[in-house]
């Protein structure tokens, strides 16, 4: 196996992390905890499969996937920003809702308890060609640099950072904190939905709980990257590289797969404990706003 193939595999695994992390980092910096990425992603994967199957169109499938993520994000934002429900409780509920609702509609739409029928996808050839011809991979690679530009070079980004660090001060100079957070959460829903689209199209179906904690890995990457988009992107690539390594070590019993599974989470805890350097979340993260 060549180095190029290896890199291609890392990018393939990293794409959903990159997309979801790019959305989540904006939401987190605006002060809203992003443990909903998992649910948004699952919802997006399902609606993408639904759209692709019933409309026979990849483009519409992608749009449906984004809409699925947006729908859940809208519910989350409505409850936890507009109605000031606790973000963590509501976030957990959104994730439960995503699992339950996708199972429920899987039953209704496809009469199955486990997976959808096969759907189309982008170019399936393995290695570099399939990768280069998948627009979602490009979207993933660009997502975090775009998030960096958004946060650091736009007025919206400034408002996002102000809302997350010092909402009272932000409000006193006329920043509509709630609305900024609403847009940030919707943005994270759209991007996490897109990550779900990638998964569904890559695996050519939707299957029950197919996101398999990828949303939490994206969250871990955001935190391990100290809430900086570019560092979060590197963290995504690092976690994906560890998984790639694990795939190639399989059968050698050199490292148990469970140890590799732990890496993103364990590294994040270590980073939080300040062993290497202290990482601090946005000051107002998770605090209910008006």
């Amino acid at each position, binding site marked *: 196996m060549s180095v190029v193939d290896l890199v291609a595999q890392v990018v393939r695994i990293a794409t959903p992390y990159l997309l979801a992390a790019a959305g989540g980092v904006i939401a987190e910096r605006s002060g809203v905890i992003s443990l909903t990425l998992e649910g948004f992603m699952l919802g997006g994967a399902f609606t993408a499969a639904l759209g692709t199957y019933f409309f026979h169109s990849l483009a519409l499938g992608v749009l449906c996937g984004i809409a699925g993520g947006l729908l859940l994000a809208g519910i989350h934002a409505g*409850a*936890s920003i507009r109605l000031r*429900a606790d973000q*963590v*409780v509501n976030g957990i*509920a959104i994730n439960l809702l995503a699992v*339950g609702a996708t199972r429920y509609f899987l039953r209704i739409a496809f009469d199955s308890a486990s997976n959808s029928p096969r759907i189309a996808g982008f170019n399936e050839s393995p290695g570099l060609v399939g990768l280069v011809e998948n627009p979602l991979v490009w979207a993933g690679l660009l997502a975090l640099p775009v998030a960096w530009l958004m946060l650091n070079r736009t007025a919206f980004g400034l408002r996002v950072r102000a809302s997350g660090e010092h909402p009272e001060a932000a409000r006193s100079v006329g920043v509509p904190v709630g609305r900024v957070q609403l847009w940030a959460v919707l943005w994270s829903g759209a991007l996490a939905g897109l990550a779900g689209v990638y998964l569904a199209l890559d695996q050519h179906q939707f299957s029950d709980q197919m996101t398999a904690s990828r949303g*939490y890995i994206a969250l871990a990457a955001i935190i391990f990257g100290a809430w900086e988009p570019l560092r979060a992107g590197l963290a995504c690539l690092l976690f994906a590289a560890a998984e790639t390594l694990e795939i190639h070590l399989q059968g050698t019993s050199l490292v148990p797969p469970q140890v590799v599974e732990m890496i993103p989470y364990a590294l994040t805890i270590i980073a*939080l404990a300040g062993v290497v350097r202290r990482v601090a979340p946005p000051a107002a993260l998770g605090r209910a706003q008006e």
Partner: protein
Amino acid sequence: MLRFTGLANQDRRRRLEEALLPTLVALLVALVCGELLILAHGESPAEVYRELLQGTWGNAYGLGQVLFKATTLTFTGLAVGLGLRAGLFNIGAESQLAAGGFAAALTGLALPSGTPALAAIPVCLLAAILGGGLVGAVPGVLKAKFGAHEVIVTIMLNFVVLAALNWVVVAHLHVPESVHTPEIHAGGLAKLSRIFPSFHGSAANLSLVVALLTVIGTAFVLFRTRFGFDLRAVGLQPDAAEYGGVRPSRIYLLALTFSGALAGLGGINSVLGYHGYYEDGFAGGAGFLGIAVALVGRNDPFGIALAALFFATLSQGGLAIHALVPRQMMEVLQAIVIIAVAASVPEVRRILRLARRPRPTIDRSSTASTAADGPAGPQEPGVNVSAGHGGSR
């Protein structure tokens, strides 16, 4: 606080209103959502709800299953609720539950097979407490020493612990062709059907009694001991508590450790009471549902026990109505209940306050609530669970 005030009656009524109304509003919303879902299937809601009650509380087997599920949820609900009383959010109940169950199973395996139950059971219970407490202590230490956000640490720790347990079981301890350990030699808890034969076939077991005792014990510690007072004080106002001589970091460490221990003890229900072995993944989301249980139970131990019964009824009810509507509908409904409760708490409280404002009575609770009307949000225990997060950065 009721002990101190002569205005206890009015105070109590207001607190009761603020505690119960949001939940009732939320349940109403969930009921309407449920009816709409059922109608969309072309079934009659009355029929489905009757079937649901018939399959859960209507017969001994169904009731036994509800009690079994409620037992685990009571423990995880207590775990989350205790943390929230200290202003801390423990999302790690899932892995603490698993760790407690695993520790109990290991102990049951290590004991020789003739060990009398009177010796074996307490040892196994203690192991479960220690197993869960150990996992809970990790975010506790990180919070107390480094100020690490316990929400993030417990989320991440869930994955680490579950992967580690999976590795130990799959690589070293499992019975071939399965993902569970061999059967324990000692420490098993009797099924309820041994005492009440009509429960035959259901998984309900004596863990239920342990759960009830734990509810009472937790209530006692929270409301009748110095430690419980300190814990609630830190949960309400960490700065004020510190000024009053309580070290918040010590409370954070102890609260998260005890919270983990409570969840860990829940592991006995499946491991000692039902299977007799540790099975990978037995927690099955009960830790996360514990958050919902604590929320609906208003962080009150007895409320938590009731809420656990409610969520257990929904879980078991899904199976009962499967002939009429897909059982996955109940999963959707559970999520709707949580969102509805979480969203209606601040809103209903705000409306209640508005409704009261024109009557300027001077008593402790009304001055307290006007003071808490600012953007920091209400500060009463566990009503706005995010209140404690201001100090948890």
